[in-house]
């Protein structure tokens, strides 16, 4: 179904610039989000036959050399409600709002069942919010899900790899799905396999890989199309120390390339070491938002862990006994 393009009068309207990572017409490699100097018009490839975008009004649009101020992830009053037979209507997310800038690692810190996975799944367009808005790389998750998916890399415990495909085949398959042209695909794969030191497992089948290898393949799959936004849902869950460290190093490396990264965790060390800003979330609500030093000072606690426990305890005491078990999903 096509919706009609609602146009607002805008100066540079008649020239269609390329913008944030759009294949297939131009080199997808550039750190597109940072150097976005143009209006966020997207001329979608007509052969894909996706409906034209609306111009999303941006207050913080900067022309010229500025790369700051264009949030790649914008969340406004995001709410997700489920209905459980026993517990009645449940808010997995309750009017959550935040922004994430490019070149930043944003952490979602919370206990199990807080709503982290729900939030990230909404970003990956796999779930739809009950109300509120979220836009990733300038695309609304509800109205333009396919564009959103083209511009993100998502990794979680539930995004597995195929048993009967080798590592190379797996990443190649997803590379093709993400639309990387054939002549650029092989060099890109070589590059990724080298960077992640996966050359030894190129031809190992998924079922025969260790956990660490599987994680590497997942990461390779996540970044194969060089997306501007990366979403990690508990990236080190179930991993041993060495592999976990390797994963965190990769994430830090990606940040240095200017990616916009959001990850969810309940491990304090990760938060301290990696995250620029952190949001503490519990029972679907954001209890605190800011950099680690800011929060430590604001709540007068020795470190982020104490801040976390204090906030959780306060909320639990005021709203009654905590929910048992994870709220699905």
């Amino acid at each position: 179904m096509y919706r009609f393009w609602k146009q607002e009068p805008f100066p540079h309207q008649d020239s269609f610039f390329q913008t944030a990572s759009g294949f297939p017409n131009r080199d997808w490699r550039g750190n597109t989000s940072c150097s976005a100097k143009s209006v966020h018009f997207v001329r979608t490839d007509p052969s894909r036959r996706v409906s034209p975008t609306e111009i999303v009004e941006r207050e913080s649009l900067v022309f010229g050399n500025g790369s700051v101020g264009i949030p790649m992830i914008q969340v406004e009053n995001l709410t997700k409600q489920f209905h459980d037979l026993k517990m009645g209507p449940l808010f997995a997310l309750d009017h959550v709002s935040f922004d994430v800038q490019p070149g930043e690692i944003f952490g979602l810190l919370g206990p199990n069942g807080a709503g982290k996975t729900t939030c990230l799944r909404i970003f990956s367009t796999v779930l739809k919010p009950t109300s509120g808005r979220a836009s990733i790389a300038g695309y609304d998750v509800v109205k333009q899900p396919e564009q959103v998916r083209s511009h993100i890399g998502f990794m979680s415990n539930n995004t597995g790899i195929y048993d009967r495909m080798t590592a190379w085949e797996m990443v190649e398959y997803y590379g093709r799905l993400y639309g990387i042209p054939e002549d650029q695909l092989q060099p890109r794969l070589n590059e990724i396999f080298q960077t992640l030191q996966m050359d030894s497992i190129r031809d190992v089948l998924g079922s025969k890989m260790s956990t660490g290898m599987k994680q590497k393949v997942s990461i390779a799959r996540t970044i194969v199309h060089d997306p501007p936004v990366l979403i990690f849902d508990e990236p080190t869950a179930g991993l041993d120390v060495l592999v976990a460290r390797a994963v965190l190093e990769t994430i830090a490396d990606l940040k240095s390339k200017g990616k916009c990264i959001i990850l969810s965790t309940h491990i304090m060390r990760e938060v301290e070491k990696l995250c620029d800003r952190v949001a503490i979330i519990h029972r679907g609500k954001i209890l605190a938002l800011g950099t680690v030093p800011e929060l430590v000072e604001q709540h007068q606690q020795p470190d982020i862990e104490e801040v976390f426990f204090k906030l959780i305890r306060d909320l639990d005491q005021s709203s009654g006994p905590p929910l048992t078990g994870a709220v699905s999903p």
Partner: protein
Amino acid sequence: MSWKNVQLIFLREVRDQLRDRRTLFMVAVLPLLLYPLLGVGMVQMTVTFSEQVRRVVIVGADQIPAPSLIQNHRLDPVYFDSPEAAEKLKLVTDLPDGLDNETDPAVRKKLEAFFADVAQREKRLERLGNIQRQLVKLPPSSPEAESPAEEERILREEFESWFSKSPAQVLIVFPKDFLKQYEIVSRKLKERSGEVSGTIIPPRPILLHNSANEKSEMAYRRVQHALQNWEDVLLGERLRDAGLPLSLPNPVPITKIDLAEATQLAANVWSKIFPALLVIMSVTGAFYPAIDLGAGEKERGTMETLLISPASRTEIVFGKFLTVMVFSLSTALLNLVSMGFTGKHMLSAIGAARSSPLGDLSFPPLESLIWVVLLALPLSALFSALSLSLAMFARSSKEGQYYLTPLLLVTMGLTMFCLNPSVELNPYYSVLPVTGPALLLKALLLGSTETPVALYAIPVLITSCGYSGLALWWATEQFQREDVLFREAERFEIGLWIRHLLREKEPTPSFSEAAVCFVLVALLQFLFLTSMQGSLEQLNSPQKLVTVQLIYLIATVGAPPLFMALLLTTNVRRTLKLTFPSWNILALGLVLAFSLQPLALELMGRLDRFFPPLPPGARQLLEAMGSGSVPLWLSLATFALAPAVCEELAFRGFILSGLQHSGRRWLPIVISALLFGVIHMIPKQQFNAALLGIVLGLLAARSGSLLPGLLFHFCFNGTQVLATRLTPADLETPFLGWFVKLTGEDDAAHLQFQPLTLILCGVISAALLWKLIRSDSGSNAPESAGPT
């Protein structure tokens, strides 16, 4: 939708399935090996199979007239079809050397005792025979038949228990005087002296057998055949002796010529086997890969990886569908080929051993095989789409497996229905899901030239594509639902669920509540109809028939939605759309009722020949509608008012509100119209109802009120009721004559509309319908989609 993505997904899935060596072996290689093995095994068994010899005991063998039935202690093989048949029966008689065939002394003793038994019971056996012959002539439930029937039952039970323990499978008893009387009749015939007919009734020999006992039955059939032949020979002898022509017993000697060709006989067999096999193979071949690709991937966690890629849901479903279809087709065709080759070799091996009624079961011609392959395509497509939808709907592989049995039962039921020789390809059947292609295949394999089979190919293929498309659309819908994609184990408790239903009511019903209402209405109708069948004789007057119909409508169609609305929703008024609409739409409905009437009647008239004829019950009802003995108000109430109120309450009230929960514009109207059509059991009415259901649904949805539809329905039906009361005299009046004219003779007279009327009505209806479609949904504010 980009085909590149579909192709990517399809190729990957196929390669993935092919890499699963074990599954590949089970699916592809094993059948190819299994069928020949089975075939060889079966051939072995039949070759080494030797039938047990059955014993025929003849008492009074000295009374057998010449030429005798017995020769060399055996039944004379000349009376049997083949010498082997005679070999299978062992003969024991009460002649001095009659027991020579039995070597086992224990058996001889048993037989001697048996002879003594027979001598004792002979009189009673005769009596049983007489009573049975008597009872055949009397009607079953008449008073004269009572006591003989009772006596017969007692005797029969006594003999049955005795005979089952005896060593004989068939007992033939020739009475003591038989030979003498036989020769008297022959002599009298020869001399043409006295009255031969009627006066002397020779004593009748008795043949005792038990057709419920398979061994006895088999022996009996063989013996009976031989006895028939022997009797013919005896008759021939008698006539020749008497100097009478041999053609006496056969005054009209008809020569029967059978035109059957061996290939046609074989084609009959193939036309039954192939469609059934094709359906089974397609379903099973589609189902297991589908489960693996749908529910299996969800379990293994690779589904979400695919979901976050740019591929759209439709592309994913399509890619998987094509994979499943490839596997379904290859399974079906591989199995059929393997079975075909095995069958051919097997049958030729068995056929060499004995003459089979199938004759030479030649391999079907190449043309037939091509048809089989071609029609495997729509069948495969449909089953692949259905299996994939079920696989997407299932939350785990285990749950998915359980869906196979109902699917198989339904499809096999439909296929078995098609195999019945009297079921032929006609326009109605050609558009039904599985029956269409199956019947088309059957007709093509039979090679029948009477029905223009090629003509049916087009509707069959088009509708098959349509059904596959529908199933795929449903699969995509399931794929979008979060609770199907993600929720793992459900916590389901009956008490909680009921409490949830009753306490947390919503203002309007949900989709599943609407479905339950429909099922309830259908069930009640079914119950009512079947209970009515029994007491049909009591409904002898049209008035009673009409009254019963009125009650039935109110009880089965009107009551459920009312109760369900009261019980399950908080806003009964909005659920049943009991608001007053704008005058515009009301007037629109009223005018449409009259302007659509001629068009509908004309359409039904034209399409009459496509539908099967009305069942007798329906015809009775229709006659009752127009009969003079039923007062007009009652007729109107039953056929116009009650349907209007009840059916609107159900289909445009409760069910439509439930369907509208999803927030779409057209889907609820179409589905409620289809359901409305389905509920009318008669095909012709179904079609009519479905079309009108769309108009009614539009009226209800756009106005948010039941009243325009109710008015439409009442006027539409009402004018038809009034029309049955018209007399030819009424039609002469100038006003009515403008619109209609009477054609045909008295009895077959029916109304025909002037072309001018039709054109006028067509234009008015089209304009009004267009206006209706374009109007906003008025007071029926769209529901917020909510967590569906």
